[in-house]
C-alpha cells in the first residue's frame, strides 16, 4: 500500500492504482472524456488533470493527468484548486469551440463552469465562445476511445486515426468498411459524444 495525500486527506492506496482511481475511491469526482476502466490509460483529453507535488517540494506543483499517473509515496494531490478548475474549463471551451452542438459536452460544460452566461466569461473563454469559427464539422473530439476499444478489446483494428493535428480524424481503412469489422458496436458504445452510430442492416 502507498501513502499519499489527496485534498488534504492522507490515505493508503493499492500500489497499482492511478490517481484517478484513488480519488474516485474517496468519492472525489474527476471528469474524464478519454478514460475507460477496461482500456489502457491514454492521457489525451486532459480533463482529468490534477495538481501534483511531492512532500519534498510541496510548492513545486505540476498539472498531471490523473488517469495515467500512478500513486506514489509522498505525493500531495489536489483535485479542485483554481488552477485545476481553470485548466478544465479551458479544455472544455476548446472542445466546445471545435465541435458542433454535442449535448454531452454542453452538459459537461455547464457542470464545470465552462459554459456560463454572456458577460461572465473571462477573455479567453469569450474569445473561444464568440470570436472563433467551429474547427470541425463533427462532434468527434478525438478522444481515441473507439480506436482503442477496437484494438485493445475486440482486437479488430477496424478503425484508426488518420493524419495529425487539426486534420486528424478517425477513419476506416481506405474509406471502406474493414474486413475485420464484426459490427460489434463497441466503438459506438464507448463514444462520449455519440458521434458513432450503429445502423441495423437487414
Amino acid at each position: 500500500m502507498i501513502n499519499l495525500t489527496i485534498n488534504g486527506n492522507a490515505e493508503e492506496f493499492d500500489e497499482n492504482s492511478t490517481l484517478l482511481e484513488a480519488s474516485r475511491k474517496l468519492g472525489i469526482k474527476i471528469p474524464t472524456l478519454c478514460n475507460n476502466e477496461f482500456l489502457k490509460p491514454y492521457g489525451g483529453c486532459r480533463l482529468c488533470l490534477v495538481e501534483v507535488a511531492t512532500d519534498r517540494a510541496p510548492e513545486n506543483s505540476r498539472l498531471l493527468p490523473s488517469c495515467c499517473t500512478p500513486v506514489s509515496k509522498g505525493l500531495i494531490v489536489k483535485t479542485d484548486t483554481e488552477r485545476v478548475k481553470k485548466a478544465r474549463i479551458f479544455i472544455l471551451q476548446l472542445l466546445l469551440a471545435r465541435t458542433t452542438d454535442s449535448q454531452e459536452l454542453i452538459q459537461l460544460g455547464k457542470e464545470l463552469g465552462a459554459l456560463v452566461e454572456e458577460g461572465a466569461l473571462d477573455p479567453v473563454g469569450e474569445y473561444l465562445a464568440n470570436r472563433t469559427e467551429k474547427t470541425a464539422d463533427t462532434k468527434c473530439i478525438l478522444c481515441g476511445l473507439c480506436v482503442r476499444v477496437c484494438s485493445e478489446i475486440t482486437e479488430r483494428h477496424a478503425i484508426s486515426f488518420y493524419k495529425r493535428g487539426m486534420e486528424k480524424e478517425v477513419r476506416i481503412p481506405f474509406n471502406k468498411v474493414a474486413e475485420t469489422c464484426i459490427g460489434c458496436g463497441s466503438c459506438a458504445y464507448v463514444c462520449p459524444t455519440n458521434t458513432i452510430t450503429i445502423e441495423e442492416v437487414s
Partner: protein
Amino acid sequence: MADFRTHLMLCAGTGCVSNKSLEVKEALELEIEKQNLQNEVEVVSTGCQGFCAQGPIIVVKPDNIFYQLLNVEDIPYLVEEHFLKGRQVEKFMYNPPDSKEKIPTLDEIGFFKKQQLIALANRGLIDPEKIDEYIGRGGYKAAIKALTQMSSEEVIEEVLQSGLRGRGGAGFPTGLKWKFAAGSPGDEKYVICNADEGDPGAFMDRSIVESDPHAVIEGMMIGAKAIGAARGFVYVRDEYPLAVERMIKAIKDAREYGLLGEDIFDSGFDFDLKVNRGAGAFICGEETSLIASLEGNMPEPRVRPPFPAVSGYNGKPTNINNVESWATIRHIINNGAEWFSSIGTEKSKGTKVFSLVGKVNNTGLVEVPMGVSVREIIEDIGGGVLNGKKFKAVQTGGPSGGCIPESLMDTPVDYESLAKVGSIVGSGGMIVMDEDNCMVEVARYFLAFTQQESCGKCPPCREGTRHMMNILTDITKGKGKPGDIDMLLEMAMLVKDTSLCALGQTAPNPILTTIKYFRDEYEAHINEKRCPAKECKELIHFDILEEKCTGCTVCARNCPVTAITGERKALHVIDQDTCVKCGICKNVCKFDAVRIES
C-alpha cells in the same frame, strides 16, 4: 599509394552540394589530371565544414588556405596558379564583411577562430564514407577502451562525472539517463539515436550524421555497453537522404570490420545497429513518439512515467540520446570526465553545436564552449547582421524556444542562462532577426509551424496552438482588439500548463518572449494599425518620393499588376487599390525613391 603533397578538402555537406560543390570537385579532378598533378594533389570530399554561407569551399592542406564561393569556371585558373605554379589565389579568399583585407588561412577567419570542436572534431578532415579515415583519426579507440578495459559502471560514472547533458533540447544529464536504463530490470535493452531533427533552420544533427557517422556509431556502442543493450536504432528523417545513405554505409563498413556484430574486440559483447527512416513528423523528435513510430504505431507521445529507461521500445528498457550527445561520448571516454567538465560553465559542461542562420553574415554550423555570449556568437563568429542592418533579436531553440533581444545579447549561452531569459538552448537552432523583422510575424510563423506539427492527441496543443496562431494572424492584419495581448498571454500559459508533451508545453514560448520584449510592437499593430518593422502587408503601403523619383519608368515596367503610372522623366504614382505590396518596385528602383510607410 601515391604520396600526395597537397590535399584539397572539399566540402560535400548538403549546403555546399546544393551550391554545386560536386561539380566543382569533378572540375578539380579533371583539371588536376590535365596538369598532370594527379599523383601530387588529391581532392577529398569531406562532410560539412560549417561555413555554409561561403560554399562551395575547399581548404588546401597542409597550409590551411581557405578558398570560397568557387565556380566550375574558376577551377582551371585556380589549379594552374596555386597547385602548378604555387601562387595562392587571393580572389577566392575570404573577405570579412567589415574589411577589405582578404584572409588567406582558415585559422585566421573569425568564423573559425572562436570555435572549439568536440562533436565536430573531424570537421573537414575526413571523408565520411571512408571508415579508415575515421580510424586514422583515432576512431573506435574509445569503444575499444570501453568494451575491453572498463566495466559498465565505470563507463556510466565517467559520463556522469563529465556533466554531459542531453543535446537534443531538454538538457537532462546523459549519465543519469544511462544509469536509469542500466538499472532497469530486463535482459533485452535498446539504444536509440534521435536524428529526427525538424526545427526550421536547424541542421546540426544532419551535419554530424553526414560528416562523421562513425562518431555516432562509436558513441552508441559505448552507450550500449553501459546499459547492456545488444541492439540499437538510428532514427533519421527521410528528408535527409545523404545522412541516411552515409549512416547505412557506415554501419555496413563497421560490420565488415567487426566493429559491429558478435563478440566485438573479443570482449564477448554483441551489438548491432539498424537505420530507421522517419517520415518527417516533428513530433517524432519527442522520445515516446519516436519509439511509437519505431514500433510501427502512430507517432503520438504518451504520458511519462514510465520513462523509456523503464519501458521503451517494445516495452523494454531503452536509452535514447540525440546525435550530438552520441558523437560527444567517445571524447569523454578518450580524454576523461575531468577534461570535458573543464570546458563550459558550472552547470553546462562541454561545447554545443549551433546552426547560425537568418540575417547574419556567416551562416553556418558553429561549435562553441557553453557559456560564450550570444553577442560573441553573432558578432565575432557570425560576422554581425547582414547588410549592416540593426540587430533586433535571435530566436534560440527553434519553435520551442524564445527570442532574445539586443539588450540581453551578453547572456551566456548555457541551459540555465537561456532559461532565465525565457528561451532554451534546445537542439541548437539560432535564427538571427534584424530591424526589418516584425516580431508579431515571427511569433505567428513559429505558431503556424507548431500547429501544423501538433500530433493532435491533446486539445490544448491541437486546438490551442491554432487559436493562438489565428489571434496572431489577426493582429498582423490589423484586426487585433484591445485586450488581445493579455488574452493571448493567458491562453499561452494555459496551453503550456495543460499540454501532454513538450511540443505543446513549449509552443507558446515564441509568443511569451516576443510579448515580453517587444510588447510595443504588438500594441502598435493593435492600437495604431501600424507595423513598426514594416513587414505586415495589410498594414503597410508603398509610396514614391517626389524628390527622388527621376521618372525612369523601371518600377512601372516591373510592376506585376501595373499599379504604377507615370510619364517618362515625370513623377510616378502607385495606385494603392491595385498594389499587391510585393515590393518589386522598391527592389528595382536605383534611386531609393520607393518607401514603405506604415
